[in-house]
């Protein structure tokens, strides 16, 4: 959920002006925001599954330190989504285990 109105920071005037594709689904995002923020705004919380036990993981630190939030982005695995900014047309996939490299589209 986005914080549209804020008592201190005022109104958020940015517009959802780009589209990203997450596991095949189109999602609106704001240019310049991290992928993790766009996913969280869309209510997506599971970013990857762990290699051995297939357990879900999501954002933990949000500043690029813990690597819990890594996903496969444009075919490249292990991208920290909390510090990687969205671009129009980006293709993002929930990462299974260590992920696989794939030709980017």
């Amino acid at each position, binding site marked *: *959920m*986005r*914080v*549209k*109105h*804020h*008592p*201190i*920071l005022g109104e*958020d005037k940015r517009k959802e002006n780009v589209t990203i594709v997450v596991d095949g689904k189109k999602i609106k995002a704001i240019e310049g*925001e*991290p992928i993790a*923020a766009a996913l*969280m*705004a869309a209510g997506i*919380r*599971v*970013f990857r599954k762990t290699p051995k036990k297939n*357990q*879900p*993981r*999501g*954002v*933990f*630190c*949000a*500043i*690029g*330190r*813990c690597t*819990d939030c890594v996903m496969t982005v444009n075919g490249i695995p292990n991208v920290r989504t*909390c*510090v990687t*900014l969205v671009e129009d047309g980006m293709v993002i996939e929930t990462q299974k285990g260590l992920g696989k490299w794939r030709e980017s589209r």
Partner: protein
Amino acid sequence: MKKTQVAIIGAGPAGLAAAIEVARAGGEVTLLDENHKPGGQLFKQIHKFFGSREHRAGTRGFRIGEKLLEDTEKLGVKVLLDSPVYSIFKDFVIGYISDGREKAIQAERIILATGASENALAFPGCTLPGVMGAGAAQTMINVHRVLPGKKIIMVGSGNVGLIVSYQLLQAGADVIALIEAAAEIGGYGVHASKIRRAGVPIYTSYTIQEVIGKNSVEGAVIVGLDEKWKPIKGTEKLIEADTVCIAVGLSPLAELAWLAGCEFAFVPSLGGHVPKHDRNMETTIKGLYAAGDLTGIEEASSAMEEGRLAGIACAESLGLYSKEEARDLKEKVWARLNTLRTGPFGKKRRDAKDKLIEMMEGGADIG
């Protein structure tokens, strides 16, 4: 290889303040940060700061950040963003990554201001999506303007736990419980009072036993603790929630100081292993300074003062200030720092810092 007079690693409040001092003295500064934007943790701090007028008390953190950026720009500080530093080699050669490539820059002096990272807490379910650092939630709501959840449990009652709880309320979420394992609230009472007035219950002598949920957080079981911090049977409570925020302290981000070969001390009240330093913030390696959370967890106001100290001392060592000029400037900063480190909350840190500085001559660890 690129060269610079003073390289500062980390553009948080400590690094920015240090850069301003060096540049003001006429030094040439390169500031490196791994982020897209400078400011470190300062831009997520939307509350009004404590302190006195000299500390800009009553001003919101992000506005102080805006002023620091303005000053660094005016003074012509070079800022390299998206540039994580991965090591410090011999002769002060700094290795960093930029545009996916390894680069190097050599400096005459280095100031480390890399800040801290949030501690995690282990309990069943602690890795479920929806369990996150309180600082992470703060980053999400105040910088990216996205709510991590609607019903939130906060773990830890230090100032970060209290402040972030308040800011979650301001962003429109409900904080349905704040739990603290100790018998008393750790942070400032005035911060606690704010969230109590907004209806947030604070459970002291409680801990989180387990977080439940299939793919993400659906609730948590909290349990009361006796004087020996043992769970008391029968006090378990199941609380429905979609997010659990962890605010159980920070640890200095000291890898670069290790790599550079600094001597360390273990000081629990400062957050763990910190590089030893003297009253100039100079470490055991000549010409290498450290400031901010890296040298002990405090808050942004003290991080800025430490940055100023390091900057002034660094300028002095380069001959940009005379001994007398530097002494006067440093004394003023020390007076402000000591003011921040008074009272029951600050005294412990002041004592620890004094010991740390004494240790530059001594050697033994403090317990």
